[in-house]
């Protein structure tokens, strides 16, 4: 019991790197005074490391304006970080975040920046024209997705083959969702409510694996192993 309690409290404050910058994820169940305590415990020993860091915003816990201002003040004055977000931009925990949060005990042990956990539907087939795969998690296709086929996932889409159809990741508005394929030659890519389509001119054949993700409000397709 004590062991579990320790792990849970250890996650009272979690720093999470995203494309926009660092977020501080606060455990929802805990009181702000406890959170302040944990914040101090976490930052104080490596204060110099955190100094000058850019914090985008808090996440996870529902904060009142006073609590927000208090925490923001501590972060800026006591620890010397810059805080760019405002109270209005504060996003509260979605179900997705909460699940992720309770798992950070495991995930935090991994020394990587981009680690996500979620359910996945694994399809081992060629997805053909007229076929729709719709799933409330991630989708993994072991095979090709042909023109006219439609893949819809609440999470990310991974195609171990050619992506030639329509891929819609993060259908519920999750902009951190992405689309990966060994070959991306799609009719259309959608992430959240952002839509992009293939250029009308015949595009050059790229045979490297690529990833499509949201950068500055646009879908960008790039190699995910740029050094290869």
């Amino acid at each position, binding site marked *: 019991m004590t062991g579990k309690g320790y792990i849970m409290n250890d996650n009272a404050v979690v720093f999470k790197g995203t494309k926009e910058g660092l977020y501080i994820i606060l455990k929802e169940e805990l009181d702000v005074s406890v959170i302040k305590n944990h914040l101090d415990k976490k930052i104080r020993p490596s204060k110099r490391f955190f100094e000058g860091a850019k914090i985008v915003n808090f996440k996870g816990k529902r904060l009142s304006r006073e609590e927000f201002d208090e925490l923001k003040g501590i972060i800026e004055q006591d620890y010397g970080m810059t805080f760019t977000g405002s109270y209005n931009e504060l996003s509260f925990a979605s179900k997705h975040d909460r699940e992720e949060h309770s798992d950070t005990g495991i995930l935090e042990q991994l020394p990587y920046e981009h680690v996500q956990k979620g359910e996945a539907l694994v399809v081992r087939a060629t997805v053909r024209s*007229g*076929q729709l795969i719709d799933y409330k998690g991630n989708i993994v296709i072991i095979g090709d997705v042909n023109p*006219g086929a439609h893949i819809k996932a609440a999470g990310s889409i991974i195609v171990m083959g050619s992506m030639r159809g329509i891929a819609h990741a993060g259908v519920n508005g999750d902009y951190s969702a992405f689309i990966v394929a060994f070959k991306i030659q799609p009719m259309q890519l959608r992430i959240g409510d952002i839509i992009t389509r293939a250029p009308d001119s015949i595009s050059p054949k790229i045979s490297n694996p690529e990833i499509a993700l949201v950068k500055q409000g646009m879908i960008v397709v790039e190699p995910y192993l740029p050094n290869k």
Partner: protein
Amino acid sequence: MGEVIVVTSGKGGVGKTTTTANIGTGLSLKGKSVVLVDADIGLRNLDVVMGLENRIVYDLVDVVEGSCRLRQALIKDKRFANLYLLPAAQTKDKNAVNPEQMQKLTSDLAEEFDYVMVDCPAGIEQGFKNAIAGASRAVVVTTPEVSAVRDADRIIGLLEASGLRNPQLVINRIKIDMVKRGDMMNIDDMIDILAIDLLGVVPDDDMIVVSTNRGEPAIANEASLAGQAYRNIVRRIMGEDVPFMNLESDEGFLTRLVKMFGFTKRR
């Protein structure tokens, strides 16, 4: 018990009927008993391509409705032994029969014939469902056009969904010189997308138009390049391992023709 093979494509005009007629004729030339079934009710043409339209008395719908016996509706081909045609009705439409009736019909035919070749109508509606109902094997025909390949892909998905796994592909009307110039989809691209086994590649051949209009399947014409391709397809259907014709070579038509005759002599 014979095999029921459906020839389908999704898109119209890619050569389903021509393929059915030629494969059927080819199988009968190989000594098999064959019946061609025209499932394109309301838009029949298999009888025309086979040159048998004047002999139709009863049709598929008559058989299904019980207005005649199955034997009465079968038309014996005028040139090839062991080759029969069950024509479609022209005055009805696709809803005149249902999949259960087609299943019964084709299984009755499979009792008597080695091969039952079903010519599927274009589209994915009732006619398609009827045509594939009794089939145990499917041949998907496409041409090197993006639209035809797209439809073939859809059809393959539907065939798999109704339990017809591993359909085989016939690429029809390919023009090698256009492929070489990069103006036409090449065979590898099509197989890459469709991801099914290739049964054969039929080159574009003016002879097909002539033979279709005359009601004589091109497969019987030794000089026709398409006929040669169909002869190879027939042998592959019968389980033989036949190498693909070398259409990509740089040699001229004459050389190819000579080679082809050499090939036929050796046979």
